[in-house]
């Protein structure tokens, strides 16, 4: 990972995302291989620079949100005044005195994020941080994560929600059955678009385009060309000149889900 980026850790359920994160954080040991976290073996020294929220928030239900964070601040060895700062970051100050057991799922997630920020970490590891959040909560979480990255904090975000990753992350790694099958930017992951043309008569349009551009794929009533998006005007003019009626002409960008499924060998039903 690069310092200051938001890195998406994608993968279908069971791909090994959480297991990888648990190994990174020293909660479980790898059966083989080595784990390096910020250039060192996972341990108290390297973990001192990392904040994490793994597999959803888990706190002491009989303590208030503030008391929970104070307990964790003691374990983390940070001053207790830091608690008020992180409560403010996640907008939980007003409900901080209430018992954790009375919190909504969204508030629990925010408290989990607050706990991850207690150490003012260089790296924040978040496992499905928007699970259970309503749209407003998800938007708030995205803003908070972008703010963290803007402040120089590196964020590792594990998720199976492609839209979330697409909106937040600079780069993504795609995990499938324990193996990293792709690591790239979201933009690159979505590259490989095609010009989609619907024209009549179809066969005449296909022949014209094949003669002019080579490879043309037929997708039902539509034709797809691997050309630059800027070629659309000339394609249209050529088809009209060839006596075809063009009813649709648009740049079709594959969505992240299709790319994801192609990389992980999944099917829409399975995903």
């Amino acid at each position, binding site marked *: 990972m690069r310092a200051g980026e938001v890195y998406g850790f994608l993968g279908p359920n069971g791909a090994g995302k959480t297991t990888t994160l648990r190994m990174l954080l020293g909660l479980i040991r790898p059966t083989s291989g080595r784990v390096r976290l910020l250039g060192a073996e996972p341990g108290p020294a390297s973990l001192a620079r990392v904040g994490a929220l793994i597999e959803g928030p888990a706190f002491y239900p009989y303590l208030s949100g503030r008391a929970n964070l104070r307990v*964790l601040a003691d374990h983390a060895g940070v001053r207790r005044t830091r608690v008020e700062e992180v409560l403010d970051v996640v907008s939980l100050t007003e409900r901080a005195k209430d018992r954790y057991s009375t919190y909504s799922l969204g508030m629990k997630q925010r408290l989990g994020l607050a706990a991850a920020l207690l*150490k003012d970490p260089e790296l924040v590891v978040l496992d499905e941080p928007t699970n259970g959040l309503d749209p407003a909560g998800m938007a708030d979480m995205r803003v908070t994560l972008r703010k963290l990255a803007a402040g120089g904090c590196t964020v590792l975000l594990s998720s199976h929600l492609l839209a979330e990753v697409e909106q937040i992350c600079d780069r993504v790694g795609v995990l499938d059955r324990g193996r990293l099958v792709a690591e790239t930017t979201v933009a690159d992951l979505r590259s490989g678009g095609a010009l989609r043309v619907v024209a009549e008569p179809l066969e005449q349009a296909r022949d014209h385009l094949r003669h002019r551009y080579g490879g043309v794929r037929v997708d039902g009533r539509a034709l797809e060309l691997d050309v630059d998006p800027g070629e659309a005007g000339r394609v249209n003019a050529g088809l009209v000149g060839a006596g075809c009626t063009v009813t649709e002409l648009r740049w079709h960008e594959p969505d992240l889900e299709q790319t994801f499924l192609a990389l992980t060998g999944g099917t829409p039903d399975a995903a």
Partner: protein
Amino acid sequence: MLRDIRAELTKQARRPATWLLLAVAVVLTLTFGYAVPYAGLSGATSGPPGSGRGLAAMLPDAFVGSALGGLPIFVGALALIFGVLVAGSEYGYGTWKTVLVQHPSRVAVYGAKLVTVALATLAAVLTLFAATAGASALVASLEGQALTWPAVSDVLLGLGAGWLVTTMWGALGVLLAIGLRSVALPIGLGLVWLLAVQNLLASIAAPLLDWVAQLQKVLPGPNAGALAAAFGASAPGVGQVVGSGQATAVLAGYLVVFGVLGGWLLHRRDIA
């Protein structure tokens, strides 16, 4: 580690179950050490241990024995439950990962839990001593007896004995919780051992089988009972099967073994 201890103390002090366990220990000790014997003072002269406690056993100079009477049985059981809660709740609430990603070492957190158990049991034993001292003073005043207190050294030795017994059972609770990674099963198994198996061994097996009788001398329950009996305690499960010196050594040995084993398990196991 001091901050880990403060964190653990905060968790347990603010937990309602901690205070409930303490209240139950005090109520049971006073009930079976004073209320029931005092109510039956005029009638009961024979029966199970404790039912025929005479007035002398309820007076101030015998309050140490009264305070320790419940240790081998219900107070020990309550200490075991407390130990299970201290460690097992982290599994129940899923908070091990929340704590450990804050980067304390597992050994430090475990050590803090054991220290917390030790401090809590010390507080509990002090409370029991205060409660029984108060009850004995009340009985003395009601019966017009003199307020004669035991020697300070006897009180301190009794406190130490009570602390050792309760901490040993608490450490067993911590070990069981870490070994079984839960709360309910460790409590259930611990109580079955403490309240059922030990009594069955003592009352049924030991009189019939000599090797069981010998085994009794190295089991935690009989040694806890022997230590309490050395201070004049009288209750079921309290008997002088060994001397107080040996009992102290055996209980201290169990405390060390339970403590080391629990730490070793927590250190080497994955946090699922």
